[in-house]
Structures are given as C-alpha cells and as structure tokens.
C-alpha cells in the first residue's frame, strides 16, 4: 500500500507531459488502507502510555512535605468523613489544569457552618494547594477551582467546621502529563 504511494510521486518526475490517465492515482481501496494504517500508527503510543498510567495506580507514597503540612493542619484532631465530597476527574491527561469541586453538607448557619476548606496534594512540590474561607452568609459550602498536579497522586480536602471538627475526603487522580511545578 505504501509502495503504491511512492510510485505515484516518482511517476510524475519524468520530463514528458503528464497525461491524466498515466498518473497512478491511489484507488479508493488504497486510500482506505492508508487511513487505517495511519490510525494504527497514531494509536500505538497511546496504548503504551495508558499501560504505564494504569500501572501507576498503585498509590505512590506521599512526599515528606505533605506529611508535615497535613500534621500542621490536623494537629492530632479526629478526622470525620461523609459530609465532604471531593469531585475531581480520575484521569487527567495534562496536570496543568485539573478542575475540582469541593462540597460540604452543612446548613451554613451561625451555629453550624464550614469555616475553611483546605486542599492538599500528596506529591506536588508544595503540598498545600489552596484554602477557602467561608462564612454563614455563604449559604452553601461549595467551591470550585482548577489546580495543577505534578504527577499521579491523591488529592486531599479538609473542611474545618465551626464546632472545631474536621471533615475530610481523598481522591486519586491519574495524571498522564504532569504539570511543570518544580520550585527547588
């Protein structure tokens, strides 16, 4: 199939005038075959990538700076789960911009509301990603943002409630192309 394409180009180089029927135009079958071959060629690296990415789903160990940031934030307080949902895609082709939504089930009254929502990443050079301060006048505890992830890792969210308790959730994101985030 490829050979027929090469003959096509050499046929036109001869000096004699080109007659339309002489030029070996690729028939419909060649075109279709060419197309399929091109797609196969394009897909093969992706297959390789996804195998690498899938193999990475064994959660890698968090970095040291995450452990210190987490300990500073939690300060030994008990962590509850269930009221905080962390909505983030499981697979991110590029770690440069991964959309994320945090929602906490809370009446947001003066007595019971979310004061702060912290976002942390286990394997980014800087563990803390962001912090959002809410007030009872927020009405609902829902925040969206887009973050950068250096590599496949777990993203953690912690909400500090007005009564001092902590709600937390974690989500793993497989990142194919890490964001370039290397301070130091």
């Amino acid at each position, binding site marked *: 199939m490829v050979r027929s394409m090469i003959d096509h180009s050499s046929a036109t180089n001869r000096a004699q005038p080109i007659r339309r029927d002489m030029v070996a135009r690729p028939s419909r079958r060649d075109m279709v075959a060419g197309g399929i071959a091109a797609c196969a060629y394009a897909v093969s690296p992706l297959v390789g990538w996804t195998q690498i990415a899938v193999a990475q789903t064994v959660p890698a160990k968090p970095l040291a700076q995450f452990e210190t940031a987490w300990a500073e934030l939690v300060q030994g307080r008990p962590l509850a789960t269930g009221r905080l949902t962390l909505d983030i895609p499981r697979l991110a082709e590029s770690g440069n911009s991964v959309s994320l939504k945090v929602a906490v089930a809370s009446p947001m009254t003066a007595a019971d509301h979310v004061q702060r929502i912290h976002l942390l990443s286990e394997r980014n050079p800087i563990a803390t990603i962001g912090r*959002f301060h809410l007030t009872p006048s927020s009405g609902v505890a829902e925040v969206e943002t*887009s*973050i950068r992830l250096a590599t496949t890792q777990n993203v953690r969210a912690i909400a500090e409630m007005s009564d001092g308790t902590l709600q937390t959730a974690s989500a793993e994101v497989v990142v194919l192309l890490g964001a370039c985030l290397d301070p130091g």
Partner: protein
Amino acid sequence: MAPRATRIVMPATAKSGEIVRVRCLIQHPMVAGSTGPTGDGTSTTARNIIHTLTVSYAGADVFRADYQPGIAANPYTAFAFRAGASGDVVFTWSEDNGAVTTATRRLNVTP
C-alpha cells in the same frame, strides 16, 4: 502594567435569601517559581502568583481564597453567597509583587 483581564459570571438580580452562584477568573500565569537550578543551571525564577482573592458584598466579606502555586494558571474560582440587600460585590485579587486588581458587580436584590 496593563490591568489584568478578569471575567466574572454573576446574576444581576436575585431574590432576598436566594443563593447567588458566582464564577470568577483572572488572567495570570501563576509562575510557581523555582529556587533550584533551572534551564541554564544558574538562574532561579521568582514566585509570582495571585496569592489572595477576597470578595465583599454590601460591605461585608463573604468569601476569601488563599492560592498557592498549586492553583492552575488563570486562577478560576466558583463560590456562592446568600443574597441579602442590594449592593456591590467587590472582587479583589492581590499578587505577590503587590499589584492588586479589583472588579465590581452590582447585585440588585428584589424582596
């Protein structure tokens, strides 16, 4: 430097007590900066990010976001607040180099 482009999506009117959902974005590269050796092995790039977004509504602070280099370029944030009285919603983005960008949107609240 030219003021930074910002984009805010917020309803112009709301009923009292209703939840107003706001989406805002500011154009900024969010340079994470690096203290170690970079391309040419010597130069280090300083960190230059938007570090804080504060939103006040009718004079009272209703939302604040502290960003770290982990936030994506052109920081986007969506949040909500409860409509009380008609007033101005003032967005203030402050950067590492001290520059501040503000934007104001009017919210008319019908009882």
